[in-house]
Every structure is written in C-alpha cells, then in structure tokens.
C-alpha cells in the first residue's frame, strides 16, 4: 500500500511535468483514473459514468460506460504511464457512450524514463444514437527514444453520433509510433480525427486513420500534422470511404521534412455513391519558403523560424 502511494505520487509529479494539472485528481467534480503499468493507483467517478478497471498481467482492462442521456460536464482525466526504464503496459478499453450522452476524455500517457517500454492500446468504442465522445491523448516521452506506442481503435458511430480524436506526441522522442484508428460512421454521424507527431533521431512514425462513411449524410475529416528531422521516418495513411448518400469526407495531411528524414503521405479516397463527395489535400516537403522568409524578415534566425513554424503546425 505504501509502495502504491509512492507510485501514485510519482505519477502525479510526472503528470505535472507533462504539463498536466495535478489538482484535477483532487477535484470531486472531475472524474479520473491513474494507471501505472498494470496497477490502478487512483479512481474517482462522477454520476452517470461507470469505469470498471481490471488489472491484468501486463496492463489493465477498462470498461467505460456513459449512461444514456448523461452529459459529463468536465473532461475525464486519465493518466497512464510507465515510470521505470523498462516495462510494458497493455490497455484494453471497451467504451460505450449511451444515447444522447456526452463525454470528453483527456488521457496523458507518460513515459519519461523509457529505455525499453511498450505501451499498447486496444480500444473498442461504440457511440450510440446522438451520443458524443471526445478522446484527447497527449504523450510525454523522455529523450531516449526507447518507447513503442501502438494504439489501435475500432469505433462505431450510430445515427447522429459524433467522435473527435486528438492524438499528440510532440514532447520528447517518439520512439516507434504505430497508430491504427478506424471509424465506421452511421447515418448523419460525424468524425473528426487529428494526429500530430514530431519525430527526430531515429524515430519511426506510422499513422493509419480510416473513416468509413456508411450512413447517409455521414461526415468525416482526417487531419494529420507530422514533422520529422534527423533520420526519423514517417508514413501517414489517411483513408476515407464513402458509401452513404450525401456523405462528405476530407483528408488533410501536412508533413515537414528536414535533414535526412523521410516522409510518406498516402491519402486513400474511395467513393461508392454518386451523391457523396470526398476531397483531400496533402503537402509534404521542407518548411514553406514563404513562411520561413517572412519570419526571417522580422529578424529571426533560420533555426528559430523553423522552430516557430513547426511548433505552430503541431500546436
């Protein structure tokens, strides 16, 4: 018990270093869950939100339910982490957001000392009719690059449901990132997916985000912003398939490449219904000359200007 308290304290300190506000874990209005490796160190719920964590050999299985008609006022704070240099954390998440419900999750994933850490997530998410689910995942890594992050999610949106995902890995070395999110959107459902990552050293970034617009009037946007430098590599696969009548989709990918880094952007757009429309834009290359020279004309050195441009893009 004493050890767990120490771990809890260390997690909160790491959370604070990751620009999180630890006060949220003592605020009774804000639901939270703190998981270190495979240990649930803290949990607080609010009415209408059910979270059942089950510790497993390598991580935690989580069952999250938002009861029908419940709108959770404040974002639910999740803190996942592995503080030692080595370890594994496998999170299985099963989420169901009830009809006309609304919830926003803010997950901080903290691996400040990682030399050989694997953080794997398998999520199954169902958002019921007119429900709304927002999932923000912010990573905080150390400078060693010894982290492997593999989040996978299958998401089902019923009629009029909405999902917003926002993945950020811009603090510390990426290590190896392999995102695979897939959304199946029903009638009039709305999907917004945004992924941002900044790779350097020998980091490897692979992002696959897919949105299948099955229902009539479904809409989806997939946006990615990636910067790579040194010898880092990135591959971004953004896929929209439109089956529903009058469904609308858009893919927007920007990748900035510096030094010996390599980047690939693959927008995949399929339309199976003549009233549907999907558009895409992808820009890949070095820093935009116009942006760079505008900032340098204000007296910023080239490196400072590039830093501002990349930070702005990843903000």
């Amino acid at each position: 018990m004493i050890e767990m308290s120490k771990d809890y304290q260390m997690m909160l300190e790491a959370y604070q270093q990751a620009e999180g506000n630890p006060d949220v874990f003592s605020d009774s209005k804000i639901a939270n869950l703190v998981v270190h490796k495979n240990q649930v160190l803290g949990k607080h719920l609010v009415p209408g939100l059910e979270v059942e964590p089950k510790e497993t050999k390598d991580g935690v299985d989580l069952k999250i339910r938002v009861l029908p008609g419940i709108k959770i006022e404040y974002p639910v704070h999740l803190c996942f982490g592995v503080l030692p240099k080595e370890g594994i954390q496998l999170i299985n998440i099963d989420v169901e957001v009830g009809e006309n419900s609304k919830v926003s999750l803010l997950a901080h994933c903290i691996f400040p000392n990682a030399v050989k850490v694997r953080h794997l997530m398998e999520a199954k998410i169902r958002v019921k009719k007119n429900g709304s689910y927002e999932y923000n995942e912010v990573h905080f890594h150390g400078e060693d690059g010894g982290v492997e992050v593999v989040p996978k999610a299958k998401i089902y949106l019923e009629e009029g449901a909405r999902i917003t995902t926002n993945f950020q890995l811009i603090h510390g070395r990426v290590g190896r990132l392999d995102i695979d999110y897939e959304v199946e959107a029903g009638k009039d459902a709305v999907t917004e997916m945004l992924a941002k990552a900044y790779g350097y050293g020998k980091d490897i970034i692979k992002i696959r985000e897919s949105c299948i617009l099955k229902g009539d009037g479904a809409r989806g946007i997939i946006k990615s912003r990636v910067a790579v430098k040194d010898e880092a590599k990135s591959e971004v696969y953004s896929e929209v398939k439109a089956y529903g009548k009058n469904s609308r989709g858009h893919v927007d990918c920007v990748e900035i490449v510096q030094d010996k880094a390599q980047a690939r952007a693959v927008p995949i757009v399929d339309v199976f219904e003549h009233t549907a429309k999907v558009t895409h834009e992808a820009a890949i290359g070095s820093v935009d000359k116009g942006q760079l020279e505008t900032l340098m004309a204000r007296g910023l050195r080239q490196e400072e200007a590039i830093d501002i441009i990349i930070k702005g893009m990843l903000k």
Partner: protein
Amino acid sequence: MLKIEDINLKKGEKKILNNVSFEVADGEIFGVLGTNGAGKSSLAYLLMGSSGYVPDSGKITFNEIDITHKTIDERARLGITMAWQEPARFEGIPIMDFILLGSKEKGHTLAEGYMDSMRLTVSEYRTRQVDKTLSGGERKKIELASVMAMKPKLAILDEPDSGIDMLSQEAVIAMIREIKNYGGSVILVTHDEEVVKIADRAALMCSGITFKVGEPIEIIEYYKEHCKPCPTKHYVPSEAEGFQRRMGPSKESGK
C-alpha cells in the same frame, strides 16, 4: 541609407533586372512604379535577400555596410524588413504573437494598438491565428502591422494596397507616413499611380530596368502616357530602349 549599384539578375537565360541603380535616403519614401512583369517584385525580393534572388553582379550598401550577400535575417537585424505582395499562411501562430515577432517591445496592449491602426477590430482578431481562415486582405493588414511593430529603418512594401478594402487604404498610407515620421525609409513597390503619389521620389521600372527616377508626378505622367495600358508584355517605351542600348541589351526584350 540604401545604395543600389548596377544590379543584374538572371533567372536561367532570362534577364530579370538589368543594371538597376538608385539610392534611398534616410526618411525617404521611394516609389517603384511599373506594370505587371516589370521586375518590381524581383527587385523587392533581391533587396530583402530572398533565396534565389542573389544578384549576378552589382552591389547593395545599407548604411555603409555591404549587404549584397547577406541573408534575410542578417538584413533584418540591420533594420530592413519586407511585406510580401502575397503574405504567407501559417498554422498555430496567434495574430498577437505574429505582429510582435520582430518587435523589441512585447505585450498584448502593444499588439492591439498595431491591430487597431490597421483597422483590424481587436475583439474579433485577438484570439485568432494567422491561418487560412483569414482572407488575403486580412493577412495583408496583419503583415503590415507586424512590419510597423518592428519599427524598421527600411521597409520594403510590395503592393501594400492590393487586396485591401478601400476603408483600410488610408491606414496603409498612414502606416507608410508613420515610418517616415520616425526617420525610417520605405521602398514602395506598386503598379498604382495613385499610391505612388505619397512617395518623395519614384523610379519607373520596365523590363527589369529603372530608366527614370524623379518626382512622383513626373514619373506618373510618363507612366500614364507610355506604359499604361502596356500593349504587350515585352513592351519597352522608346526612352527605355535608348537607356537599354546604353546599358547593354536585355535578352528578354530583344529590342
């Protein structure tokens, strides 16, 4: 302050600037007038030090310092800056921060003052970013505000009035005068003879040469009579032909 001597610039085989020479004094507004394709913007890029615009020959001196081969940021740190004809689009940079990028003084109140002077409603733009949600005219006004905030010794303004609504044109003129008032100089690149009227002196540019420098009214009259409308892209007024013969032929015009 700024001395440009016999500047030549080629892009491939095409001559863009041909023996361009003029001087700009402290506190002077110097207009560069000419039709589209005359080489005005190329001259502006070259003076700012934009990549790809290093002169093939000639010399640029700023306050006795040879800046011919200095980079953009080195020139900027000497007090030169520029507002591009087509301002860049950014992501994630707040307008307030962008305006003060080159300013030694910081603070939201200061940024708001510059926004106000460019007729940007502070309450509307305070929390916005310099991104693609802004129109070209809005980005232009923000860029001009950032030039003003830098308090440059020399501001190169490439078509500062284009794309800006009529009500804000006065603000652009006031901004140019403000720079002059504190002793700064302005190179005002434009194809609009009305705008160049605020200059102290002006040069008429055609096919990469500045063949006439003088009082703005004199330049405007010549421009109206000989250059506008320009009958062909490669039209060179007869007086310029003579000038060009003296300076050496331009491969582009072939005249």
